[in-house]
Every structure is written in structure tokens, then in C-alpha cells.
């Protein structure tokens, strides 16, 4: 036996912990679990210790057998992108289903280690159709180079509220958008760690979406305060929609509800926000957010298409998606009929509370745009909701 001890048995037991801190598992359970796995990792440890003790080298990592050594990966004019890398069969073959629920990189010499590699139980999204979109690589590159900074890219010093009612409307809209941006970041967060690393392009893109949403949350929180106003009222109706998005049964369903319907709607609100802006500060905020949001919507559209194209039982997949969309549209309807969202938009549209009636006509136009663009994106994904859509095509406002 070596001087370096393989000494798991001599480790002290963890103290019992009765506190209420958020935990994934108790320390006791964790320690117990890793003791149970000891047969597997303890054997590797022992082999390594013995080798070190003998003073011998392994050099197995220099064995090129089964590797893609020598595969030419050439940068394009804009540098070395994933699209450039994936042009080679060796690195660009995306498995329809992966057996690798661990961290071994796609394209590495990993087959021979399959029995020794651990399984990450949480990596349970193991099929391409649930995460892939044909524009993923493009959108990932675009997201990286089109980042902006809400601290320095917005001309904050130019912000001068026009009147109290318009500023209140801007603050209420900002409060609502701050709420929305939380879920748009948390939904991908809920799935990223479940996606098997073979689909790293999807994981990476979703990380950019999270960064975008963090920035949106940040910029709308700042906007609410920067004009001397305040964060105003959260919207219980909208929060039910956010909850429904967050708790979607599958990644594709949630991506449909968040990216296609929800963010399609938010994209229109951003466009309207730019249209309605009374200051260059607001123009800049909405225009920059609009760009990010359109990436998320584009991903959602082709992710839904990827799922519907590849589903083994297309009829069942469509029926399931329609059943999900029936309820999903209703919770989104609950959200977009909410006065805490519609009325500030109408005040901005009408140029003040006195002309809120005129503003509602503008909201009516927005409504029709949101529904029509949603249906067009569904069509593009091969998901025909035209006869089934449960959101009225016209704004249900009695005048």
C-alpha cells in the first residue's frame, strides 16, 4: 500500500443537519450515495494510486485509435464558428438520440470508456428533436456578438419624464416586463442542466438567452426607477401565465409557449414600446431588447418544427401539442387581458390618460398583430393553429 491512502472508510461522518437551508439532497444522503458508488470510482482511485506508487506512466491518452485526429477544421472569414466545426462529419454529426449521459465531449475517444463513465441521472433530455433548431448555430454566434450593456449603452442622462401619467404608464410597463423577464431566464435554466451535453449547441444558445433575459430584467428595473418614478404593480393574471410556462411538461412545449407565443407577444410589445417612446432613452431600450427577443422567437419557431418533423408518431405528437396549446393559449389570454398590461399601453398609445379610449384602438391593432404573427410562426413550424386558436383574432373590447 502506498503512502497516499485510499481512505474513504476513515472519513468522519457528516454532522446531522436539521436546518432549513435549500438543499438538493442532505449531506448525509450525498455522502451515503458516494459511498455506494465507491465500487466504481474507488477502483479508479486505487488503480491510479498504485500506478503512482510504482512510478509508472499510463500514456493511454496518447492513443489516437478511435479519435478524429487530423480532421481539418477551418475557420471562415468571421473566425472559427460552430458551423465551421460542424462541417466535418467527425464533429458535426448530431445524434438523433444519445447514450452519453455524462460529460465526455461529442467527437472525443469516449466509446471505450462507456462502462466506466458515470451516468448523470438529471441528463434526461437525450433526443435531438427536443432541443434542436436548424438556426441554433447561427443564432448562438449572433447572440455572442450582439450583446449590449444596460449600464453604458442607454443614454440614461437624457431621460426626462414628459408627464406623470405617461411616466406611470412607462413604470407600470417596466414593472410588468421585469416580471416577465424573470421567467424567460428561469425557463431555460430549468432545462439546460437536463439536456445531455451532446447537444451542447442548444445548451450554449440557451445560456445566451438567459444572459439576454438577465439584461432585460436589469434594464426594465433601471427604467422604472431612472425617471424618478417607481416599480409599480405586479400582475397576478400574468404571473399565472408565467407559472404555466415555467412548469411546461416538456422542453419543446415550454419553448413553444415561451419563445413562440410568449416572446412573440413580448416582441410585439417591445416594437410597440419603441413606437410609443416619448424619449430617446426608451427608444434605445426597446430597440435593443427587440433584437434579442427576435432571436429567442426564431429559435422557438424552428425548435417546434424540429420536434414536429422528427417525432416518431407525428399524429400523436401533434395531438399532444394541440392539447397543450389549447390550455397554453388560455393562460396567455388571461395574461394579455390584464388591465395592468393593457391600460399602460393604452395610456402610452393615447398620449395620456385623457385619451385612453383612443389608445385602446392602438391596443386593438397590437392584439391583432400578436395573434396573426403567432399563427404565422406556428404555420412556419408546421403547427396549424388557425382553426384551433383559442385567443380571439380581434381585441375583445366593447366600444
Amino acid at each position, binding site marked *: 500500500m502506498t503512502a497516499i491512502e485510499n481512505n474513504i472508510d476513515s472519513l468522519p461522518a457528516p454532522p446531522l443537519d436539521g436546518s432549513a437551508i435549500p438543499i438538493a439532497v442532505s449531506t448525509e444522503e450525498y455522502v451515503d450515495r458516494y459511498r455506494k458508488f465507491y465500487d466504481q470510482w474507488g477502483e479508479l482511485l486505487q488503480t491510479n494510486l498504485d500506478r503512482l506508487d510504482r512510478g509508472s506512466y499510463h500514456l493511454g491518452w496518447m492513443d489516437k485509435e478511435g479519435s478524429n485526429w487530423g480532421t481539418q477544421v477551418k475557420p471562415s472569414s468571421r473566425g472559427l464558428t460552430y458551423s465551421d466545426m460542424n462541417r466535418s462529419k467527425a464533429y458535426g454529426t448530431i445524434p438523433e438520440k444519445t447514450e452519453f449521459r455524462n460529460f465526455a465531449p461529442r467527437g472525443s475517444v469516449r466509446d471505450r470508456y462507456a462502462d466506466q463513465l458515470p451516468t448523470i441521472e438529471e441528463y434526461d433530455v437525450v433526443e435531438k428533436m427536443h432541443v434542436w433548431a436548424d438556426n441554433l448555430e447561427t443564432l448562438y454566434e449572433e447572440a455572442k456578438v*450582439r450583446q449590449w450593456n444596460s449600464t453604458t449603452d442607454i443614454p440614461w442622462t437624457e431621460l426626462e419624464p414628459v408627464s406623470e401619467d405617461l411616466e406611470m404608464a412607462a413604470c407600470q410597463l417596466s414593472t410588468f416586463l421585469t416580471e416577465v423577464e424573470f421567467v424567460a431566464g428561469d425557463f431555460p435554466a430549468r432545462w439546460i442542466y437536463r439536456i445531455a451535453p451532446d447537444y451542447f449547441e442548444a445548451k450554449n444558445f440557451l445560456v445566451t438567452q438567459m444572459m439576454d433575459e438577465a439584461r432585460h430584467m436589469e434594464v426594465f428595473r433601471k427604467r422604472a426607477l431612472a425617471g424618478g418614478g417607481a416599480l409599480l404593480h405586479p400582475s397576478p393574471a400574468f404571473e399565472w401565465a408565467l407559472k404555466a410556462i415555467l412548469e411546461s411538461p416538456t422542453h419543446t412545449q415550454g419553448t413553444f409557449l415561451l419563445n413562440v407565443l410568449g416572446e412573440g407577444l413580448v416582441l410585439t410589445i417591445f*416594437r410597440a414600446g419603441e413606437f410609443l417612446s416619448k424619449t430617446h432613452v426608451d427608444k434605445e431600450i426597446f*430597440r435593443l431588447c427587440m*433584437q434579442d427577443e427576435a432571436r429567442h422567437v426564431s429559435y422557438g419557431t424552428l425548435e417546434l418544427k424540429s420536434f414536429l418533423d422528427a417525432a416518431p408518431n407525428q399524429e400523436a405528437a401533434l395531438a399532444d401539442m394541440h392539447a397543450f396549446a389549447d390550455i397554453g393559449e388560455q393562460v396567455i389570454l388571461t395574461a394579455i387581458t390584464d388591465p395592468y398590461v393593457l391600460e399602460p399601453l393604452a395610456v402610452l398609445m393615447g398620449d395620456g390618460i385623457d385619451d385612453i379610449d383612443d389608445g385602446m384602438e392602438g391596443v386593438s391593432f397590437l392584439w391583432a398583430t400578436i395573434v396573426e404573427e403567432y399563427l404565422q410562426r406556428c404555420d412556419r413550424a408546421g403547427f396549424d393553429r388557425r382553426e384551433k386558436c383559442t385567443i380571439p383574432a380581434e381585441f375583445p373590447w366593447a366600444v
Partner: protein
Amino acid sequence: MGGVMTDEIVAFPSIEWFELLAQRMAEQRDHFVSLGSCDCTAQVTIWDGPGGDEWRCQVVFEEFGVESVRLVSEEDEEAADFILETDRETWQEMVDSIVEGEGRPGLLHTLNRLTMPGTPIRCWSHDPLGRDAFFRFNQTIQHFINNSATFTTEWSEG
């Protein structure tokens, strides 16, 4: 934006007008790099172009610049990600506003403001993903047009 007024005079609508904006984009590469790459084909359609006919050109944006500006016909429309169509007067009003703001349009004359209600500029596409490209690259396209403040536009009669 760092564009300074020059003594160049270019007619609108013309290929030369958009090529001059492309040249400005190349001159301000650092600024456009800071906005991020832009890859899309934008078509501009002017209903009352020279001779009173519809005038169409496509500006092909690639990475941080313009790859080409080309005169096209109706049959080429599907090559465009999105189409911005309107009359000359709307362009004149927009450019006047940009010139007055020294490279920044007034609140009522940004591209998004003018296209959002579908009038006075209609932004449309054969493919919703193509129309989304107009939103994805909006800041770059706005700054591209903002360089119209760096020269004099001659508004020829139709």
C-alpha cells in the same frame, strides 16, 4: 456615430445612394463591429421610383458590412429576408429627420416607428423568420440609414 457631413450629393432612390451608405459602414467598421454582425438581405421598394415605376434594390448585409447592393425585379423578391416598401416622400421625411438630428432620427422617424403600424412603411416577408431578421438586426440597419446625414440627398422627381 462618427459620420461627418461631406459635400457629396447623391440622388434617391439609386444604387449609388445605398452604396454610399455601404461605404460609410466600411469606414465606421469599429462602430458596426460594436453593434455585432448583421447577416440578412434587406429589400427596399419605392412605389414611385424614377419614371414613376416601382424601384427595388436589395442590400446584402454580411457580418459587419455590405456585401452587395443590387437592383432587382419583382421576381427576385424571395431572395430578400424582408422588404421595406413605401413611397419617396416617406423616405424624404425620414432622411430629413435624420439630417436634422445630425445622424439620429426624431422620435417619430425611426425605422421601427415607421413600420410598426404597417404604414407609412410596410415591412413584410414571404417567411416570418425573414421578417424577424428585421427585428434581430434593427439597430444595425437603423445606424446604416442614419449615415444618410453624412451627405446631401437629391430628391429627384418621379
